[in-house]
């Protein structure tokens, strides 16, 4: 039947129609998938929300972060500064931050790290931190690849992994081909670009040896290889398989290899007589001087309301200072819940601070009264926002250790900030959390 049918008949027949419809549907699906992939790739984030809540709430607390620019050209500098505190209530299941390394978290090596300092000490290498103490850091980056990137400072903690601070979007324009990182060695050599330095020698030397290796293999491949040689070997004709010429070539290869390798190494020694082994030491950084604890915080009860996406905590605050203090901000997991009724706290949020990590609903302080010097009072804080879900922090209810942590920022009447850590047990509630207070 098909033999006599025309092409149009065939396309109108039922199986062909189904096939064509299927192909159209597949094309649409692929286009949609490509669109989704395109959108996803333009995000260029790198899974910081994937870290478990206890890693973000009870290890390092980052604050006072500033990014010097949001738009750069290739080779422009970006300076990221801020403070970080190694938390008092560090999770029991993680090693303490005895060995940490300051770096950036971003999608690959899109920014070059020019300089890094902690408490004004250069940190080329790893260093140790003390729990409960603060550190001031500075990262000087150089834009390398054009694109839009979420750039975080990051402290990589031995045994705990990378712990990223807050991220800000940075747009880089230009071409990667224009990137240069010049350097001068102590022996007077000029390195025009660190990214490509030495590659001429690497490619020439590896290419030369690759050529010799191919020549050696072709010496054998040009002849019958497998079945004939095996059969000849079975028939006792090994003499035909390894000839005198083969032995000469093998001798040349053996002696030539030794000569070329040691000749090359000798050339390198002559060219670079003063070299240094890799530096495997550690930096030593003292924490910032410890400030007197103005306010002692005791968690009376803390609840995470799962359907309401709300953290509510009743705290007992004791004011040890000579100032009248008010609650201004609760920060945890790089999120800033700011008390909008507190002008000093609101002024501490720069206009260009990443808005996606400052929840709009802020921090509600029930009975928001000033805390007099020496006074002990109970306050209830309410941090309600969908961001708990968006940042995947509601997963804290499935942590093996149901505790939470953060920093409480209080302000005196002069606008000076006083920082107190907050940590304690947290109880998840799957129905109305208010009924449990």
């Amino acid at each position, binding site marked *: 039947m098909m033999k006599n049918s025309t092409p149009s008949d065939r396309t109108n027949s039922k199986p062909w129609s189904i096939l064509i419809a299927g192909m159209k549907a597949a094309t649409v699906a692929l286009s949609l998938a490509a669109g989704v992939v395109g959108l996803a790739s333009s995000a260029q984030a790198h899974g910081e929300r994937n870290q478990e809540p206890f890693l973000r709430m009870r290890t390092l607390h980052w604050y006072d972060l500033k990014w010097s620019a949001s738009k750069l050209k290739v080779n422009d500098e970006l300076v990221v500064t801020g403070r970080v505190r190694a938390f008092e209530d560090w999770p029991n299941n993680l090693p303490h931050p005895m060995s940490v390394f300051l770096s950036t978290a971003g999608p*690959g090596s899109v920014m070059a*790290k020019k300089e890094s300092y902690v408490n004004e000490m250069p940190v080329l290498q790893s260093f140790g931190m003390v729990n409960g103490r603060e550190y001031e850091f500075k990262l000087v980056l150089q834009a390398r690849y054009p694109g839009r990137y979420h750039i975080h400072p*990051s402290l990589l903690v031995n045994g705990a992994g990378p712990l990223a601070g807050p991220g800000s979007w940075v747009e880089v324009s230009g071409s990667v081909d224009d990137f240069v990182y010049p350097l001068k060695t102590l022996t007077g050599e000029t390195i025009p670009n660190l990214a*490509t330095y030495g590659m001429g020698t690497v490619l020439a030397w590896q290419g030369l040896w690759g050529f010799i*290796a191919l020549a050696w293999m072709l010496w*054998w491949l040009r002849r*019958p290889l497998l079945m004939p040689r095996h059969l000849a070997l079975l028939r006792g004709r090994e003499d035909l398989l390894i000839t005198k010429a083969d032995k000469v070539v*093998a001798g040349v290869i053996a002696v030539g290899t030794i000569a070329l390798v040691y000749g090359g190494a000798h050339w390198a020694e002559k060219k670079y007589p003063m070299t240094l082994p*890799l530096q495997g030491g550690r930096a030593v950084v003292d924490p910032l001087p410890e400030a007197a604890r103005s306010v002692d915080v005791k968690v009376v009860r803390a609840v995470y309301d799962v359907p309401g996406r709300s953290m509510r905590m009743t705290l007992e605050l004791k004011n040890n200072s000579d100032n009248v203090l008010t609650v201004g901000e609760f920060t945890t997991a790089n999120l800033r819940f700011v008390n909008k009724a507190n002008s000093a706290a609101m002024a501490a949020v720069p206009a260009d601070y990443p808005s996606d990590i400052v929840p709009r609903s802020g921090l509600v302080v029930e009975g928001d009264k000033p805390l007099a010097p020496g006074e002990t009072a109970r306050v209830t804080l309410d941090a309600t926002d969908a961001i708990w879900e968006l940042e995947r922090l509601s997963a804290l209810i499935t942590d093996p250790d149901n505790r939470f942590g953060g920093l409480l920022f209080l302000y005196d009447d002069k606008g000076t900030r006083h920082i107190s850590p907050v940590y304690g047990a947290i109880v998840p509630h799957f129905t109305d959390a208010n009924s449990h207070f």
Partner: protein
Amino acid sequence: MSMSSTTAGGAAAEDPVIAAAGLTPAGAKVSRNFDWVIVLIALFLVTGAFHLHYMLLAGDWDFWVDWKDRQFWPTVAPAAAICFPAAVQYFLWTFFRVPFGATLCIVALMLGEWINRVLGFHLWARFPYALIWPSLLIPSALFLDAVLLLTRNWLLTAIFGAWGFGLLFYPSNWVMLAAYHLPVEHMGQTTSVADMVGYTFPRSATPEYLRFIERGTLRTFGGHSSAVSAFFSAFLCMVIYIGWWFMGWAFSKMIWVANPLASYMGLKNSQQS
């Protein structure tokens, strides 16, 4: 013994090996085609398997220029790299008297490494080539093959060839690496160019403290750590070569296993094995 004599069926009989094998011109032609198919399959098979093996055992030392130290890199890298060459040398030498097993493995490994570095490390993760060039192992492999051919003995190859495999590794790479060990001052501190490359181009999950370099007391050994490491590596290579030569023996054995499902497949007892 030219290429034409082996590929053209009529002239194939002139080749003494073909003649000794007793192959007809048509058989010689088929065997030649078979050679190329097997060589191509072997190249990709060894590339995949050996690359996986080597990356698991010597990965970071081979990935990064600031891991290529005087102690662990020259010890670990050749010791991890001699495994497949030993096993493949057993197979190719014992059954075919073909002495390029080590070179084939190492060329395949380096092919895989460069594919991985260009596509994965450079184009995907955007690391510069100065940070990620792979170690050179070809001189070591050529020497190992040459010693096998000249001695025709696996034990002598283990003693001399495998020693050479380990000893040649560091000097053959020093040609490329020396420039990266020039001293540099940065932020008031002395460091090497290789350390600077590693510092400047961030690896978000490979921090500095993970580097397994220059540890222990070997660094105090008269300042000649690399020579001590190279000799230790040579000894390791000898031992590992012997072990993997017999691995090649074990994997080259043909074992016939009785088919336990024969009766379900309609086979008689006599057809089971």
